[in-house]
């Protein structure tokens, strides 16, 4: 696979905490590749019919959702690990924790941790900075 390139765009923005204008960077998003295009690209690359990829991915995504939403993590080699994480306010005692749990539960979310192979590809990605 070719080495990737990410462009970071710097724009002048006000920094609130010290009330100054500075150049703040953000990775440029060119487009959002729609699901159908990803399937089509993957089908061409793998030499597998698009319909097979689509059916397989639907079934795999359903299974991944099922496992992750039931407290397991799912590890896909060369891509990463998906797992569920909760944010809940700490409590001084067990009783307080149980009693206030519903109120103190801030967020349940699916987290993604990139695999070492993907991290290596990210590290090899060229970075170009642009200033507006």
């Amino acid at each position, binding site marked *: 696979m070719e080495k990737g390139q990410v462009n*970071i765009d710097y724009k002048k923005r006000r920094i609130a905490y010290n009330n100054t204008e*500075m150049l703040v960077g953000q990775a440029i998003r060119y487009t959002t590749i729609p699901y159908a295009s990803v399937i089509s690209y993957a089908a061409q690359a793998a030499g597998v019919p698009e319909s097979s990829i689509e059916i397989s991915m639907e079934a795999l995504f359903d299974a991944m959702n099922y496992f992750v939403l039931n*407290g*397991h993590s799912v590890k896909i080699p060369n891509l990463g690990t998906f797992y569920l994480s909760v944010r809940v306010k700490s409590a001084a005692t067990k009783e307080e924790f149980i009693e206030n749990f519903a109120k103190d539960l801030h967020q349940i979310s699916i987290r993604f941790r990139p695999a070492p192979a993907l991290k290596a590809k990210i590290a090899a990605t060229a970075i170009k900075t642009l200033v507006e």
Partner: protein
Amino acid sequence: MGQIKVKGTMQRVAIFDENRIIGHAVRYSTVKEDELVSYVARSSHIPESTLIASTIAIREAIAFFVLNGHHVDLGKFGIFGIRSKQKAAIDEEQVDASLVKHLTVGFKPSARIKRAIADIRIEIEV
């Protein structure tokens, strides 16, 4: 509907400088790709070879598009995209790649998954 267990354990919290109960989601196991593929093959009758070829092709496609600055929409699963953290610069001369401190691939779950998360049953264990 999913069901998870949140376990509260006593840990020192630096900001309070005291021991407090901290909650975290219990992770039962890590499902590996071959286990996932076998599970899907058994439940859907899709050949394992097709499932393996599909996962390899999709993960290569994700890496290719994301590492070239695109976001990848995987429909009912979610969106992958590049995320970066960089220092701010005072003027244009300061701006270069060395200001980029962290580059990673992020994942944003779909609205369908977020709805499923909202319906999760939670068991508390302390």
